[in-house]
């Protein structure tokens, strides 16, 4: 693990009306690490994902990806640059097969468009074939290749969650943002998902992870950042964060002290 930052949030503030969902948040995710983002409900975790992927334009502050500002970039451009995500409540293309879901994501780097597709040019054929192969490869990696011809909406819940990750990996990202990938899982499913996330990291992807399950996070994360009421209250090794009094307070709901 290096200390080369992939994603940096610098003093990011996101304000909705009078509410500051994020307040001067600084966050750095380094290449090849699993960074966990935790915090009570409404702390602003998903908002971080939304400002990074361009869903919201931050009120203030700057977001850098490999040192380049994401300001003014369209969502699909940000994805193309190498940031992919999943969603808290699964949002697959239900009426496409699993394979098509992933191929759609792989298309982001393809060059052929409408004309190439109509004329079925060699490049279009090559890209179509490559996309299919890559999608199968990712589905295999996620352990759901046997589902590739099934409609996404008909998949069992656990496989839908895996397909969401597969689709995100389809865009060949440098960093994947996983939004509660283990929500609704039982302990053994959580365990295998944790292993999968480590495998994803070992493949060279950087992972930013939102999760509620502490044991899962503490087991696999290289670093944990804690948000509370839109502010970052801690950012350190899991073992350190676990014993941080501010974090314990935030989770137990004890009012913060006067400082």
């Amino acid at each position: 693990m290096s200390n080369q930052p992939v994603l940096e949030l610098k003093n990011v503030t996101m304000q909705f009306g009078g509410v500051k969902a994020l307040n001067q948040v600084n966050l750095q995710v380094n290449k090849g690490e699993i960074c966990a983002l935790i915090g009570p409900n409404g702390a602003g975790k998903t908002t971080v994902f939304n400002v990074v992927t361009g869903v919201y334009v931050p009120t203030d502050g700057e977001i850098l990806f490999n040192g380049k500002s994401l300001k003014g970039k369209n969502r699909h451009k940000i994805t193309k640059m190498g940031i992919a995500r999943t969603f808290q409540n699964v949002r697959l293309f239900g009426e496409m097969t699993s394979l098509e879901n992933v191929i759609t994501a792989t298309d982001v780097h393809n060059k052929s468009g409408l004309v190439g597709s109509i004329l079925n040019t060699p490049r279009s054929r090559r890209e179509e074939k490559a996309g299919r192969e890559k999608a199968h490869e990712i589905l295999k990696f996620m352990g759901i290749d046997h589902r590739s011809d099934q409609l996404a909406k008909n998949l069992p819940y656990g496989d839908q969650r895996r397909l969401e990750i597969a689709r995100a990996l389809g865009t060949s990202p440098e960093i994947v943002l996983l939004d509660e990938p283990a929500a609704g899982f039982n302990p053994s499913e959580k365990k295998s998902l944790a292993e999968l996330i480590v495998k994803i990291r070992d493949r060279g992807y950087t992972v930013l992870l939102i999760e509620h399950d502490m044991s899962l996070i503490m087991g696999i994360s290289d670093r944990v950042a804690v948000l509370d009421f839109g502010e970052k209250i801690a950012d350190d090794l899991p073992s350190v964060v676990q014993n941080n009094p501010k974090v314990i307070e935030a989770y137990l709901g004890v009012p913060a002290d006067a400082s």
Partner: protein
Amino acid sequence: MPFNLRDTGATLWANSNKWQRYLIAGVIIVGAFALPLLEGTFLNTPRTPFVSVLFYPIGVYVLMALGLNVVVGKSGLLDLGYVAFYAVGAYTAGILSMHTKLNTWEILPVGIALAMLSGFVLGAAVLRLRGDYLAIVTLGFGEIIRITALNSSAVGGANGISNIPNPPTTFGFTFDLESDRNYYWVVLILIIITILIIRGLSARRPGRAWESIRQDEDVAELMGVNTYKYKLWAFVFGASVGGAAGVLFASKAMFIAPNIFNYNISILILAFVVFGGMGNIWGVVFGAVLLSYIPERIRFISEARMLIFGLVLIIMMNLRPDGLLPRKKREKIGIAGGEIK
């Protein structure tokens, strides 16, 4: 499992090898070209010659339904002003034949290009809006085109343009008042080309992009789909087909007027798409053929045509929103040798 025409057809196709597929396609195409032979059978239409009905309304409407299907069925963009592109095509034919010596075949690409251009301009302006607003803005655009034509003396105002020349004799095929069959064949050729193009697009990147936009536009964009660009493409492609239909219609009818291109035409075409099955080429063809033929065959229905199409919209949406022949709903289970492996 109940009989399902779409699945039966899809399974047959999927289980066929290359030569069998050519054979199936060949039989369908030859059969379509041979339809004028059915003149004089029970299919005959009482008021208009059967072969003429094959060209208009059936052929022209099938063509338009295919174009609108890419916009509404595949991409989920509700365009209620599709008639505008049909009008642009027809008026291109009318105006160019008034002022130039160009023949129909030379006008056709110009009509298509101008329709695409108007689709592009309208699309570029309104496709950033979401959903319902698009419907009402496109409706407004259709009316703007019609009323502008109505009030412009340069294009004949309410009287429209008459004496638009028929196409010239081509490869020995004549085009005059007697040659309904040849017109039908021309529109059929355009339909086949359109189907081939749409099939090509659907199976590849643009098809996936449109499908993802229809299902969840926000997520599509976050997965790297340039949603604006692909929506615009869908719009422009739909417009090109509408424009082609317009040029062809004008060159056969020889006369056009603004009130031919009213809101009802947009609704009509929408009803065809919805009835047959949004997003599925064969469903749309089937819906357009059936719904444009029946009013010609059965007199009293012709009077209540729009009423019935309105009912079709309500009933289909409530009972069978995916149409008679829905798009791929079932999975590929049991289909061996499918294209995607």
